[in-house]
């Protein structure tokens, strides 16, 4: 399991109801079911991944974040997880709203477009930056809504979400030591991870 997935799993209480949006090969929900006794389900857009997950006995359905969250009733889940996908959905704000409608908590991870290497590349070359995290050229990237950690925090504020926990991590998912300063995290964190809840919770 990836290090960032382990960090996500650590945020989730045992026996919780979890929906992993973009569950990939099902690693996280398998882990949550086996080690934390969670009722963990997945939605995945890639059919091969779906088939592989179901063939491993995991409850995964074919679908995607933009179209399939609206069906669930309010408060169906304790946690709704969106890993490294927010930047690739059609309507990120709406997806977040749905996540926090159907779940009491949302766990969101995304690559930080505010990282210094990206800023430097744009400044010095005048071209769209390419790094190991942002590795596809602009004309073929699925990442249509990149944002920085500060952008995301601002959106949470506008939408009234409570940031219960956040951390910046490096590319491999290891925790980076920028917990105290948002400014530093936004400059040096390659990825960010947020645990959100609705106001009033």
């Amino acid at each position: 399991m990836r290090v960032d997935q382990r960090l996500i799993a650590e945020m989730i209480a045992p026996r919780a109801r979890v929906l992993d949006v973009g569950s990939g090969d099902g690693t996280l929900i398998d882990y949550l079911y086996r080690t934390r006794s969670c009722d963990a389900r997945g939605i995945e857009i890639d059919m091969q991944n779906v088939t592989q997950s179901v063939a491993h006995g995991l409850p995964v359905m074919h679908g995607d974040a933009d179209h399939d969250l609206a069906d669930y009733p309010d408060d169906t889940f304790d946690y709704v997880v969106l890993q490294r996908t927010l930047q690739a959905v059609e309507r990120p704000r709406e997806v977040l709203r749905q996540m926090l409608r159907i779940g009491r908590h949302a766990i969101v991870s995304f690559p930080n477009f505010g990282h210094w290497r990206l800023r430097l590349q744009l400044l010095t070359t005048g071209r769209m930056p390419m790094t190991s995290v942002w590795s596809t050229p602009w004309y073929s990237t699925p990442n249509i809504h990149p944002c920085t950690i500060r952008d995301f925090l601002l959106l949470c504020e506008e939408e009234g979400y409570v940031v219960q926990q956040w951390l910046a991590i490096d590319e491999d998912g290891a925790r980076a030591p920028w917990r105290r300063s948002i400014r530093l995290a936004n400059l040096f964190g390659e990825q960010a991870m947020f645990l959100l809840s609705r106001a009033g919770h």
Partner: protein
Amino acid sequence: MDISASQSIADGPVYTHRTVRLDDGLDLECGVHLAPLEIAYCTYGTLSPARDNAILVCHALTGDQYLAEQNPLTGKPGWWDRMVGPGLPIDTDRYFVVCSNVLGGCMGTTGPRSICAQTGKAWDSEFPPITMHDIVATQAKLIDYLGIDRLFAVIGGSMGGMQALTWAADFPDRVFAAMPIATSPFHSAQNIAFNEVSRQAIFADPDWHDGHYRDFDAIPARGLGVARMMAHITYLSEEALSRKFGRRVRHDAATAVPASSSPSLFGEMFEVESYLRHQGSTFVRRFDANSYLTITRAMDYFDLAAEHDGDLANPFRKSQTRFCVVSFSSDWLFPTSQSRLLVRALNRAGANVSFVEIESDRGHDAFLLDEPDFDRTIRGFINGAAEHAAFLAGER
């Protein structure tokens, strides 16, 4: 199975099916009380002491209970014997598998060929109209009789999937897991239309005799054969037909219309024509026209949402059943869009749903054929559900 007698052409050969007879009968949705009720069934594997390892497999429109053994009527292997057996995806080393002939069928369960207790004569076309709920209620009586409180799983493709859904809707506490395959929560207008053409073909046969063909020692073989030919096209796909037959012409003097001295419009026969004729002619030997009409009508009536205030989520609210919905990409009879409708409703109900569309170019019939991804899906879903059942049992 013994061939006890070979009666008239209309009755067809008579076999001794394994049957349970329930004298208290069944109240049908239409109001008719049907008694006695006979249910023909097959079982595979062993029921566990806790009686918690039973899987009910529901057959499709023209299927029967001979799931994983030689069919005594056709001599062919069981219709799903590549899926059900020791070590197979539906593993009879672990599970007790039950398959029964549907109500209204012609393989031993009460249907149009049965004797009506009131008149002492066969029902024939007077057999009361039945619904998917009646079909499932009949199966529930068999499950009661077998001493099974809750089914570990109900699995079925096509009309069998309608039954799996009906089980989950009508008996939510008796179904731990449900697998509706290549099916829909309602029968579409297009499918009703195909059924209607099938039925009109039967009615147009001079041997139909208003459904009392057996009194005339006849069967509406041409009508039923045409019905089957047309239905068979809907089970395939253009790709499958092209791959299998293309435009090849059959150069077999025995089956083609004899060449005469003058050129003939039908002097040659395309392979696809020959194939369909074969499908039609073998079908009429094993299936009863009145059963065909009764069961297709039950499919036409099927609309789970309409019965629940127009919301398909309603019958599944608070359902604890684990669902696995499977569709096939080239199935245009029960397309993926209808499975997706079902999945969305199950999500609205907050049910536990897996949903896979299997890539295949073989149309609706793909669920009966060798599709490795489909096999893996069935095996995985069953194993996952079993693990979860054991987990819940450990919790208790």
